[in-house]
């Protein structure tokens, strides 16, 4: 009894040591399940009967043998047969009834539950009933009122649960009804005024009062008229502003005024916004009798509250908001103003123009005066700017000024000049020094602007001897002749500062700014410093190159090869290619010198099968064959072949004659055998091979004859070949030649 069985029996409750249990080693049948519940309910159920169920008790895992197609039914689809192909039903007659399948159709209950869970929040907000309130309220109503079923059914049919927002519900609780305006109740007069405004009629106060004869009506207050919701039309086409479909060209250009006025009602999307107050003047000026206006509640003159919320029933919507239009407005040049736009009274922006100050006669600009002035009150300026620096930049009041006006204490960290920290004495001393300096300068030279606002021409000085040396030395700008000319002019002007003719020629180019010119001059100055020739002692050591190297000229931008350049390059390439092509071999062929020059000999390995088909021994057999094989060693064979080229030639002169490679080294020291004697009586070695022949090992034959992909080769099965002649002459065309030719002969050493 195995331990497993023992344990099982013990589990079941059978005493394994009892005589009953030990009676037989074989347990026939399946033991009954235990009376008490064990953990594994399927313990005694054979595997093929066991079922896997999920936590809800549904059967899962319908195996291929037990379930098969019904797996679909048990898990997903609704019929025991699984997916039954639905019978064809023609939908020709009821195409309209074709229902698009919803995602829910493909969901199982878990998915549906998920969907429902995710929807709950939305549902509480959405499914609101204005009339009845929420479902709970309905429930409560049902509880209280106890409607009979017919009534409730009718109610449900006629008043479908409306969906309204919480705000609407609150309003309703405050007494608002659908169709009423919002706001405190008004008198009948006010209400009529509203009506009149809404219909666009101009009703005088008298008319309003006239209508109010009903005493009873005046006793009550009324809910205000509903405010029409401004419906701004969405512009979802690509027409220009003011254009409506079907408009003729003239209309769109606004030529016909009358036609243009018909567009008023349509282009209701523009005009006064919901929060813009329309004043009466505008209305009276532009309103035409034909225009239909929806006056709204907030046009009431005697209303001062700003409650502008409009909640309208759906029927009220779409009537359009209040539009003020200017049908007859034209621009100054006569073109019509677009519908919905208002011609502004005021121009958009007015440029301010000031007349030029009158220039006194005989006035000539003299900048020196200004400069002198600035020099004179330099100190004042300095102190001023130090304290309030931005006063200079900004017109108008500065923050500091404002601060003083407002009585603020100035900021302690205001930057101060160095002069502030100086004693009065020192300051005066400094002033004197600077004044002396300025006066001295003024006496010596013409007053030059210390900080010229516009860049002036500055030509750096070069020592005349350096300049003249540089003139003789290396010329750095040979690539650019114009620049070189200017460089030379600069050097000349520096070399002979007295000669003004050079310096006058040194002017900025017409399209060159002064800054660029200055830069250029600095460049010249530097190059003169660099390229001045070495001193005589140094110069003696070198000789100047005779050829000036013209470096490759750099061009800005993309490189576009020129036509002639390309042509030259191509020709050069062609020439080169031709030269390359004309190898000695080709050259020889061109000259007609065919022969060794045009011949190339390369080793070539024919496939073994090919050799076999042609009845030729493999010229380069596998190395393992050459070990014990007869003179088929590759080196040996090839050597023999090489030395015997002419021999082959001779032998094959007879047409169609073919012979096997002759092992030349076979006869011991007898030298080459005379081919003419072979096989004839004079051949004293005749038959020697035959006599001394030893059969080569079988694997040699196998290697030669046995082919792996050979199927029709019975005649070439390895058979002990007859001892061959040293050379075998076979008539052409005989297919059996291959047999004898391929047999190697045994050499004697």
């Amino acid at each position, binding site marked *: 009894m195995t331990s497993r069985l023992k344990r099982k029996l013990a589990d079941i409750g059978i005493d394994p040591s009892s005589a009953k249990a030990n009676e037989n080693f074989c347990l026939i049948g399946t033991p009954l399940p235990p009376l008490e519940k064990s953990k594994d309910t399927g313990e005694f159920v054979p595997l093929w009967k066991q079922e896997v169920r999920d936590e809800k008790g549904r059967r899962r895992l319908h195996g291929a043998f037990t379930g098969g197609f019904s797996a679909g039914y048990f898990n997903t689809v609704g019929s025991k047969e699984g997916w039954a192909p639905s019978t064809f039903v023609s939908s020709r007659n009821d195409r309209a009834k074709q229902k698009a399948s919803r995602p829910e159709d493909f969901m199982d209950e878990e998915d549906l539950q998920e969907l429902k869970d995710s929807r709950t929040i939305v549902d509480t907000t959405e499914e609101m009933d204005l009339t009845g309130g929420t479902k709970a309220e309905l429930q409560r109503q049902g509880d209280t009122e106890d409607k009979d079923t017919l009534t409730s059914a009718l109610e449900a049919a006629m008043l479908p649960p409306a969906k309204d927002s919480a705000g609407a519900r609150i309003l309703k609780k405050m007494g608002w009804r659908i169709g009423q305006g919002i706001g405190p109740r008004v008198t009948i007069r006010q209400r009529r005024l509203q009506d009149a405004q809404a219909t666009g009629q101009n009703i005088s106060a008298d008319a309003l009062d006239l209508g109010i004869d009903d005493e009873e009506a005046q006793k009550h207050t009324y809910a205000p008229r509903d405010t029409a919701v401004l419906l701004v039309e969405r512009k979802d086409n690509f027409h220009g502003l003011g254009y409506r479909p079907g408009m003729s060209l003239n209309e769109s250009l606004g030529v016909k005024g009358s036609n243009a006025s018909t567009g008023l009602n349509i282009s209701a999307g523009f005009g006064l916004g919901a929060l813009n107050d329309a004043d009466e003047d505008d209305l009276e000026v532009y309103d035409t009798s034909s225009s239909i206006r929806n006056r709204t509640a907030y046009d009431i003159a005697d209303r001062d509250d700003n409650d502008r919320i409009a909640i309208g029933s759906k029927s009220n919507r779409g009537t359009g908001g209040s539009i003020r239009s200017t049908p007859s407005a034209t621009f100054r040049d006569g073109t019509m103003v677009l519908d919905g736009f208002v011609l502004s009274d005021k121009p958009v922006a007015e440029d301010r123009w000031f007349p030029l100050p009158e220039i006194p006669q005989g006035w000539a600009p003299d900048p020196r005066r200004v400069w002198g002035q600035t020099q004179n009150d330099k100190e004042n300026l300095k102190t001023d700017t130090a304290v309030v620096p931005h006063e200079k930049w900004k017109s108008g009041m500065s923050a500091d000024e404002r601060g003083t006006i407002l009585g603020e204490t100035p900021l302690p960290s205001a930057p101060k000049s160095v002069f502030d920290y100086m004693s009065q004495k020192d300051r005066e001393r400094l002033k004197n020094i600077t004044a002396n300096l300025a006066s001295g300068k003024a006496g010596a030279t013409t007053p030059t602007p210390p900080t010229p606002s516009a860049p002036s021409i500055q030509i750096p000085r070069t020592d005349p001897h350096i300049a003249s040396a540089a003139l003789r030395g290396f010329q750095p700008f040979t690539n650019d002749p114009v620049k070189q000319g200017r460089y030379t002019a600069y050097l000349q002007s520096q070399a002979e500062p007295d000669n003004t003719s050079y310096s006058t020629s040194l002017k900025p180019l017409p399209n060159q700014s002064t800054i660029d010119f200055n830069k250029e001059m600095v460049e010249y100055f530097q190059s003169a410093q660099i390229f001045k020739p070495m001193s005589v002692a140094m110069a003696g050591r070198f000789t100047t190159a005779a050829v000036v190297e013209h470096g490759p000229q750099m061009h800005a931008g993309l490189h576009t090869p020129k036509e002639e350049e390309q042509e030259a390059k191509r020709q050069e390439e062609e020439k080169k290619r031709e030269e390359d092509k004309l190898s000695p071999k080709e050259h020889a062929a061109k000259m007609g010198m*065919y*022969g060794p020059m045009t011949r190339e000999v390369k080793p070539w390995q024919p496939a073994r*099968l090919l050799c076999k088909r042609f009845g030729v021994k493999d010229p380069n057999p596998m190395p393992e064959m050459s070990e014990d094989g007869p003179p088929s060693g590759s080196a040996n064979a090839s050597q023999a*072949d090489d030395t015997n080229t*002419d021999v082959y030639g001779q032998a094959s002169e007879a047409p*169609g004659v073919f012979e096997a490679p002759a092992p030349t080294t076979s006869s011991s020291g007898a030298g080459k055998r005379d081919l003419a004697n072979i096989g004839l009586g004079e051949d004293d070695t005749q038959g020697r091979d035959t006599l001394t022949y030893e059969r080569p090992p079988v694997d040699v034959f196998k290697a030669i004859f046995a082919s792996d992909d050979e199927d029709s*080769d019975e005649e070439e099965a390895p058979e002990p070949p007859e001892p061959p002649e040293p050379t075998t002459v076979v008539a052409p*065309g005989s297919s059996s030649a291959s047999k004898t030719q391929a047999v190697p002969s045994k050499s004697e050493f």
Partner: protein
Amino acid sequence: MAPSRGPQRLARTLHTTLANHKGPVNVARYSKGNATYVLTGGQDRSVRLWNANLGTEIKAFTAHGYEVLSISVSHDNAKFASSGGDRSVFVWDVTTGMTTRRLAGHMGKIHVVEFNEDASVLASGSFDTTVRLWDLRAQSRSPIQALEEARDAVHTIHIGSTTIMTGSVDGHVRIYDLRKGELRSDYIGHPITAIVPTQDLQTVLVTTLDSHIRLIDLTSGKLLNDFTGHKNTSYRIRGCFEHGEASVVCGDEDGKVWAWDLVDAGLLQPNPPPKVHEKVITWTEHHPSDPNEMITASADGTCKVWRQPK
């Protein structure tokens, strides 16, 4: 073979015209053995078998989808191979007129097919620059070997008993020597359209597109003779030896048949030769055994059998 007894008169009398082809005739081959039959292949996608003596068409072999460019007849006349634009070699059974094999593997049109001596191997040279050697004994579909040395289209092949000679447009004559295991390539320098070796395999006649026919010594690669005078610059024209190999015969692009003495390369009479075909002569082949007969195929759609006047 008959020994050379100096140049004979060329067979210039028209015996019969084989004119059933619809387009140019690209190739005309004698059958083996007595060579009483002629096989022609043409641009009209057919191979036709003729009785050269009677001038009657015996059979038309139509399986090619493109033009037929080359024909090779096996040694026992039982089968022949043809190739052309449809990139596979067709091996036909002559009696049934059906293809027994279609050897596919080339990437381009196949310009030439040749059997070896016992028709166990078939060589095909193609525009794809390769020469493929097919085993006809085994049923394998892949070639035994592919010779890929050529750098341009292979236009002509000759298979000797132990050598395979190919001529390519790259200007090389390549001799694959199976016994030596070496490849000798002779550079001619011009596109080679035909090579015809002499029967002793010592020399080879090389037709090139520079209007030259050269006789090349195969052992050394030297030029033995140069035959000129005809015009051959753009078509494959196959020249041949006259019977006895005493003279060289070749057509040209004007429809004339030229003949030269083999030894002194002088043009044989008549000089210039008369125009015998309307268009380019694509193939000349001399009867293998009858010294008095030769055939010419031309792009004018005819193949003509020429004989010596009796």
